[in-house]
């Protein structure tokens, strides 16, 4: 039976034959992940299961990135519990403080995830690693506790929607714009319980970072995974991250797809998702001029070095509008350092930005960028649900880094072409 990428990767880690969409597959897991919000519950469940040890000390990652540096006593207590569990279990990949980054940027950079892996994480954006050819998906804490104890989990094999993206886009358009456009077309439940498999010339031309940005938001269409082939670019990325033994991976010709969605991005403008759902997508020219109080550049979606370069190219020699807060959070310590070495941080500071540490803080309304009632932000993050970043009477617009940077300069939603 010709297999989709989803079936093929699951087969890599399953002892039995992976069946058709809808059948159950029990698979080994390559890596299990939790963060400072979800790990405390996972630890509780792990102990309630009577588990005494994690299945593999190097295949569990605990990344305290959401409320860190800790915003209050309760969050500090949560991290303390995770830290002590990691120590007790001998978990090798525990990150907090100077070595912590936003989990979905950090783990690929460290070479902990790659082509053919099956990764489960107690964080919905675990699907990011599909950009590297991994079957990676978010689950709850108790599922993660089970995977930490058993080293395996179960999946319903998802039907696959093939997303074929071709054409050459206009300036300032990247992976974020492609995925926003797709979510706009299929809707926030358009891929419910399904795999999204991305391909086509426009996708092949993307960097691995750009593909991870797209895979990251598969969940915003309800998708279980967002998958890309592991091609020469992927293998080069994996090798640079210190991995060995990875192989190219592609779907079989003639694999059964539920349907195919085609997108020609020729001449496409940057895209913006309007409140309060990621499917409310419009070209930037249709929302130009909407006043913003804050702009956030960072997160597991767009906090990587190429995102910072894109923002810096727009901000170079310019100033953030008076009364607007621009918050820039490089996603990992390595990205932070590289942005420093390349002079990007200086450009941000000269423009009047707040440059902060790697943290998920503002994206989920945790800390470092909470909105008051009546305030509006544009952000490179992945969700614009009502109240996501603070007050129920605030608004979040989503865009790529270039539009977020240009909007900070104008004080209203703008394309870099408007400057």
């Amino acid at each position, binding site marked *: 039976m010709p297999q989709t990428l989803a079936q093929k990767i699951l087969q890599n880690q399953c002892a039995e034959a992976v069946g058709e969409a809808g059948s*159950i597959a029990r698979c080994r897991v390559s890596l299990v992940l939790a963060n400072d*919000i*979800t790990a*405390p*519950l996972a630890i*509780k*469940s792990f102990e*309630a*299961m*009577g*588990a005494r040890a994690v299945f593999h000390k190097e295949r569990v990652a605990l990344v305290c990135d*959401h*409320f860190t540096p800790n915003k*209050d006593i*309760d*969050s500090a207590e*949560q991290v303390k519990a995770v830290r002590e569990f990691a120590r007790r279990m001998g978990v090798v990949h525990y990150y907090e403080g100077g070595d912590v980054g936003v989990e979905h940027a950090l783990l690929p950079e460290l070479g902990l995830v790659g082509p053919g892996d099956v990764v489960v*994480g*107690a*964080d*919905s954006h*675990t699907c990011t690693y599909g950009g590297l050819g991994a079957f990676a998906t*978010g*689950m*709850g*804490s*108790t*599922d993660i*506790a*089970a995977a930490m*104890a*058993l080293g395996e989990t*179960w999946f*319903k094999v998802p039907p696959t929607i093939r997303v074929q993206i071709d054409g050459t886009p206009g300036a300032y358009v990247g992976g974020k714009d492609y995925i926003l456009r797709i979510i706009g077309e299929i809707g*926030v*439940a358009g891929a*419910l*319980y399904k795999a999204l498999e991305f391909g086509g010339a426009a996708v092949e031309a993307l960097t691995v970072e750009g593909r991870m940005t797209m895979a990251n938001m598969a*969940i915003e269409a*309800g998708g*279980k995974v967002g998958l890309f082939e592991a091609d020469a670019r992927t293998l080069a990325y994996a090798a640079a991250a210190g991995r060995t033994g990875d192989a190219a991976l592609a779907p079989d010709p003639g694999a059964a797809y539920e349907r195919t969605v085609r997108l020609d991005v020729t001449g496409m403008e940057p895209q913006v998702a309007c409140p309060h*759902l990621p499917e409310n997508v419009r070209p930037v020219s249709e929302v130009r001029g909407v006043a913003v109080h804050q702009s956030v550049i960072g997160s597991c979606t767009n906090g990587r070095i190429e995102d910072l370069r894109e923002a810096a190219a727009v901000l170079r020699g310019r100033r953030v509008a008076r009364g607007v807060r621009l918050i820039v959070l490089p996603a990992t310590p390595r990205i932070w350092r590289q942005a420093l070495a390349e002079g990007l941080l200086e450009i941000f500071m000269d423009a009047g930005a707040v440059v902060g540490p790697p943290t998920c803080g503002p994206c*989920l*309304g*945790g800390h470092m960028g909470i909105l008051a009632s009546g305030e509006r932000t544009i952000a490179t993050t992945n*969700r614009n*649900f*009502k*109240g*996501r970043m603070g007050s*129920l009477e605030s608004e979040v617009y989503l865009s790529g880094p270039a539009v977020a940077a240009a909007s900070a300069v104008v004080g209203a939603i703008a394309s870099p072409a408007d400057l």
Partner: protein
Amino acid sequence: MQYTGTAHAVGANIDTDAIIPARFLVTTDEAQLGANCMEGLEAGWVARVRPGDIMVAGPNFGCGSSREHAPIAIKGAGIPVVVAHSFARIFYRNGFNMGLVLIEVGDGYAQLGDGSRIEVDTDAGVVRNLDTGAEVRCQPVPPFMQQILDAGGLVGYVGQRLAGEAR
């Protein structure tokens, strides 16, 4: 199992930030989370709920984050069952793992209006609106998930397996 209670209708695409906003995620305590259930939809929402009441939702209930705090908050508010058009995938799995009963009824959810008396019969596979007499069929629980439910949820299922392997 049978459940009877008053329906609280909450609409389509209810996300996990609406069910339990991030600012409340500094605890794993069911009572504390329950006290803030649906705080991201409407301040003070939980005050209208009596123990045993039933939540009724449109498509894609529980979309968004993987936070297991969301089904815990619903249970903590005293709601044992959610009937929806459809559930987001991670939330669906979390619900079963936490012992929150989730019933998918497709378009039939529209028959279960806010404030109606609702009866859910999981064995017969039917949800009834006791006020109007409308009957809505519900999806059967997949066999593998029934195994997990039979073990008392995922904690019990894994506990059994670990105990078996230790023998």
